[in-house]
């Protein structure tokens, strides 16, 4: 029997919500093609109800994930990188098809993405030292600022960079203890949906990352208006949509990361190959400041 006579097994790509792999509640799918317009797969076309379910899952996961120690979060994220490393081949193929790269170019992109993930895994227990601190105050108090996660973050993943860009927007959100609802690139969602499979097998609690495939415009609107979403990353929205979503997000005072906040020049999109800096890590943090009395001041001054 020649090798070509084997029927290939086609993969059914599904969403990743609450640690499970559901189809879209609406039952809809759409076709995904590679850079040369050859059909690759049918993927779920998520509806606003899928977005709502994902927010519920993310909210449910928030307590446990934000309450985990930073060290533990770092370990879990590093584990994700280990899993990614083991599936480099699959991701390289998907990235090559999605972005029209050669196999070796795609392999470099995937390696950069794994390295990016490891880099963010290292930040989990260091961010507090960098953006928090003990503040000098004119009184008998300790005054301490600590960064806290914002909550549920809706992420519109970049439309062009289907994997390196994706990793670069998800990792910083969850590294600090937020949970995420991610809307994958509409044209190239396969790496994102495969990432869901990696996350499901790497100690990351279900619901911390939820991946939806579909139209950014259709899913962005209910997410931006959702009262139980605390922040939104508009990286994957075109300027017109970003403007509309920013207005909707103002209603419950969401934190908004606008495309222009992380763009190097006015025209170009973000360069995900460059050093990411701390912008994405700090965009979804609150600062909690605690005043603690050091003891009463006697005639001779503070006891401290």
């Amino acid at each position: 029997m020649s090798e070509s006579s084997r029927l290939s097994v086609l993969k059914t790509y599904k969403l990743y919500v609450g640690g499970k792999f559901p189809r879209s509640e609406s039952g809809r799918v759409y076709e995904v093609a590679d850079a040369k317009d050859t059909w690759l797969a049918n993927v779920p076309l998520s509806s606003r109800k899928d977005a709502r379910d994902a927010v519920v899952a993310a909210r449910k996961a928030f307590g446990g994930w934000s309450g985990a120690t930073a060290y533990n979060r770092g370990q879990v994220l590093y584990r994700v990188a280990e899993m990614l490393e083991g599936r480099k081949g699959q991701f390289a193929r998907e990235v090559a098809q999605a972005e029209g790269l050669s196999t070796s170019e795609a392999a470099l992109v995937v390696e950069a993405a794994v390295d990016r993930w490891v880099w963010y895994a290292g930040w989990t227990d260091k961010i507090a030292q960098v953006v928090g601190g003990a503040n000098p105050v004119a009184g008998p108090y300790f005054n301490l600022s600590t960064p806290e996660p914002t909550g549920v973050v809706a992420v519109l993943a970049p439309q062009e960079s289907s994997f390196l860009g994706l990793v670069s927007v998800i990792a910083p959100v969850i590294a600090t203890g937020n949970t995420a609802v991610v809307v994958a690139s509409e044209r190239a969602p396969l790496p994102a949906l495969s990432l869901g499979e990696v996350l499901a097998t790497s100690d990351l609690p279900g619901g911390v990352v939820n991946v939806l495939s579909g139209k950014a415009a259709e899913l962005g609107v209910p997410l931006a208006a959702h009262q139980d979403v605390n922040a939104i990353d508009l990286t994957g929205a075109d300027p017109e949509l970003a403007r509309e979503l920013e207005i909707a997000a103002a209603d419950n005072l969401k934190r908004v990361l606008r495309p222009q906040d992380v763009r190097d020049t006015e025209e170009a999109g973000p360069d995900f190959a460059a050093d990411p800096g701390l912008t994405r890590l700090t965009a979804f943090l609150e600062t909690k400041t605690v005043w603690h009395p050091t003891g009463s001041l006697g005639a001779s001054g503070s006891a401290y």
Partner: protein
Amino acid sequence: MPSPQLSPPPGQGGAATLAAFADVTASDSTLRRFLHGLPGVDAVGLEARAASLGTRSIKTTAKAYAIDLAISMIDLTTLEGADTPGKVRALAGKAVNPDPTDRTTPRTAAVCVYPDMVEAAKAALGGSGVKVASVATAFPAGRAALDVKLADTRDAVAAGADEIDMVIDRGAFLAGHYLKVYEEIRAVKEASGAARLKVIFETGELSTYDNIRRASWLGMIAGADFIKTSTGKVAVNATPANTLLMLEAVRDFRAQTGVQVGVKPAGGIRSTKDAVKFLVLVNETAGQDWLDNHWFRFGASSLLNDLLMQRQKLATGRYSGPDYVTVD
């Protein structure tokens, strides 16, 4: 379909019913013969029917109507060992004014508490029209002497309870001592006086659908104003199937005797979607006469928050979240 007869006002119905079933309740054996003579339940058919009624799509204005109706049918419940007068007051406040941001939200039907909290609930509710229901008769196990159960009931009524939720003695029922259960319900009914009596069967402990049908008839013959599925304290609580079965029982009972009895599923109903499914069951089985909080209730606590969030979604078009409803 039998033409709906005018139901006698509550209080008189009981006496008329008792007279009609005097032969049946004459002795343990006649009662057993009657209850075991009820048609057997087609379990597969019942579950299929309940499931198919659960697939109805209720949207827009119908959904808004269903949400408001469901809110008005809730017995807002707290039955914890850790209940304090403060918690009961908070719950009463929520019953009167479920959504402080929207005064058009209907009030719940009642708050449901333990007998010792009735006074606190009554004081907090004042003249709001929200009733106070109290569980009684050694809730939730029902394992106590009749005297104790009756004293429990009288206490609750004396403290001002408008409704009494009693549990039946499941041990006696399962052992086949139907007359004992019957007489206990009658005694509690008498002790309840003017308060409406809800009889809890704890369907999760009755093991078969046939038993649920028998218990329903037994309760109705004994003069229950409401039949209620569960205490909320066991693994299986209200399900669409057992509620459907009880709705069929109250429908048939009214067709036969002219007495209307209410139904209250309790426990495990947490989402708006679930509640709407139950309302569909009511409308399709018992009929519109039961779509009123005098005849149908939900025993629930967390359900109210989900209903309120859905209500806010319908009003604003934005999905709401748990930050916008009270924590209880």
